[in-house]
């Protein structure tokens, strides 16, 4: 990394260890009738590189590969990918979470070392009285591959819970996509309640599950795996994705609104370069700001008792009326109804 490298990563940065994710996915897709030339077309990857220990690939290549795999009519692929990740002997992070004491510790590790598993997503936690919600946000523009990648992450969590706690009762999956015609069959793959057409991809886990001890905690293996994870962490650039970086900058500034020029300045870009970059990631300044405000509003509303006026001020709206209208647009409900 040179001194002028930006504090975030984009499509062309090599952020993913190939051996962690690619070989398993390739093998599974090949058993489902795809050939490797077809799968690797457009990715600029070569199969012999798959097994090289420290070979890193960029987000664009991974997204292209996922896109190629999505062409297969095999809805189980993300689930199998998650299960392969969880068993991958080269992936210290998954051994780490498998040998944790409980879900809480496992998630803490997963979030701390997340660059090693799914650097393209970032997580926001919303804790309520009975359950805690994990919301997955895209760290870079994931396009049509977002569902697939989110499914990998969610299925990984579910499989961990099922393996370690024996059942997935008390979990709910939230998906942004509408229910497909085969939703009933997909339900069999998830093996838990799934809600479609939500505002985010995520999972809700009942609070009593977080501290329930895991089946096979192993302190020694845990320490070992953690050491390896720390070493890995030094090798992989610990930078957030473009959208995560920009989103967090906007969030920090609220209730002040960061203008596009100011945002560009924090990202060491010219305003027009920022505009281009965001367009590459299928979004824009106003869209990003809107999403940030949406998330903050929902999280404030679920956690605190605030009046509309206070909320409008906290989110940088000029008046209550504008806030109410925006809220209606995000959730389909007015804030007072949402509180109930």
């Amino acid at each position: 990394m040179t001194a002028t490298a930006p504090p975030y990563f984009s499509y062309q940065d090599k952020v993913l260890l190939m051996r962690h994710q690619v070989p398993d996915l390739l093998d599974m897709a090949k058993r489902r009738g795809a050939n490797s030339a077809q799968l690797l077309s457009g990715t600029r990857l070569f199969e012999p590189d798959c097994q090289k220990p420290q070979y890193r690939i960029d987000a664009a290549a991974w997204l292209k590969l996922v896109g190629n795999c999505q062409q297969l009519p095999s809805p189980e692929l993300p689930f199998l990918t998650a299960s392969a990740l969880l068993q991958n002997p080269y992936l210290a992070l998954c051994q780490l979470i498998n040998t944790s004491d409980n879900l809480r510790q496992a998630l803490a590790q997963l979030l701390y070392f997340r660059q090693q598993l799914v650097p393209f997503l970032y997580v926001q936690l919303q804790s309520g009285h009975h359950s805690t919600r994990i919301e997955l946000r895209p760290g870079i523009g994931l396009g049509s591959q977002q569902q697939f990648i989110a499914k990998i992450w969610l299925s990984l969590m579910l499989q961990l819970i099922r393996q370690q706690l024996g059942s997935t009762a008390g979990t709910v999956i939230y998906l942004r996509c509408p229910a497909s015609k085969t939703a009933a069959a997909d339900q069999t793959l998830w093996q838990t309640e799934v809600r479609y057409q939500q505002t985010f991809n995520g999972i809700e886990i009942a609070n009593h599950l977080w501290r329930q001890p895991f089946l096979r905690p192993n302190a020694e293996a845990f320490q070992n795996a953690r050491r390896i994870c720390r070493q890995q962490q030094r090798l992989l650039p610990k930078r957030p994705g473009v959208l995560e970086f920009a989103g967090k900058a906007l969030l920090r500034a609220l209730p002040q609104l960061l203008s596009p020029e100011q945002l560009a300045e924090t990202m060491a870009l010219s305003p027009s370069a920022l505009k281009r970059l965001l367009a590459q990631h299928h979004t824009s300044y106003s869209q990003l700001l809107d999403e940030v405000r949406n998330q903050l509003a929902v999280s404030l509303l679920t956690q605190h008792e605030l009046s509309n006026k206070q909320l409008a001020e906290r989110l940088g709206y000029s008046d209550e009326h504008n806030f109410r209208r925006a809220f209606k647009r995000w959730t389909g409900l007015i804030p007072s109804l949402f509180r109930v």
Partner: protein
Amino acid sequence: MWRQHLDKLCGSLLLLLLAILLAFQIGDLKADGRVDWWDSLGEITTLVVAASWLCLIVCSRPRGPVTNWLFAGSFLLVFSYSLDVLDEVLSYPDTIRLMSWLESFPAPVGMVLLTFGLLGWHREQLAINRQLQVRELFLRDHQLLDPLTQLYGPLYLQAVLDRELELHRQQQQPLSLLMLDISGFSDYNRRFGIAAGDHLLTQFSELLTHQLRQRDLICRYAGDCFVALLPQTEATTAQVLNRHLQQQLRQLLPEHGIALTGVVLEFSIKHHQLIQNAEAALQLASKELTKTKATAATLQVVTV
């Protein structure tokens, strides 16, 4: 095809003949020297092209409003161009303007009508494309097949089950559905890896195809859950089939803790109002399957 349009053809030919007769009635043949051959060559070509359009329309279109527009448009063109050609060899007296009107007026009108007809044709084609797409999705699309086991997937199952339910209702014939789940599959996957798990699924699906009968439809519903649709079969036969499959699977994998959990859904002839469509039936079956797994039973029969 052209026979459908005989009435239109006769009518328009008559009209054309009348116009030509009228032209000969009014006009006189020009002397040879005054005919501009190059000009008439161009006009004859346009006439031939317009006439060929008319022929193509008549030969390829069924009766209907869109065809009528197309026909009327191209006929007016033919009409106008024929008089145009006649104009080259006949000279009309200056006092009668009728022929020059008949010659120039129908062409633009025909063009407009033709355009209108083409617009209709375009819409028609869009509708046909849409319909073809739907049908294609259904019959030819390999997306309906599960790529790993080459069995049908849930979408196809739903469609066939809907049809079978309808038949069952109409013809009062027995119908059963057997939903099977390989219990212990996720442990197997974890112990031996996903490649081994995939291999097991392929083997099991081959077993299913060999053991079940020709008329049964076998689907990979999701993951390790399979569905066999058994037309003209009662629950007792389905139970026998299931026991048979259990034995076969045990022979296939003697010592890996793999077994089958199954649910037989028998659609009774008496009270069929309970289950309206395939989706509801499949949902019920998978709910019962979860219950059966929880009680550690191997088979449950549900009559709906």
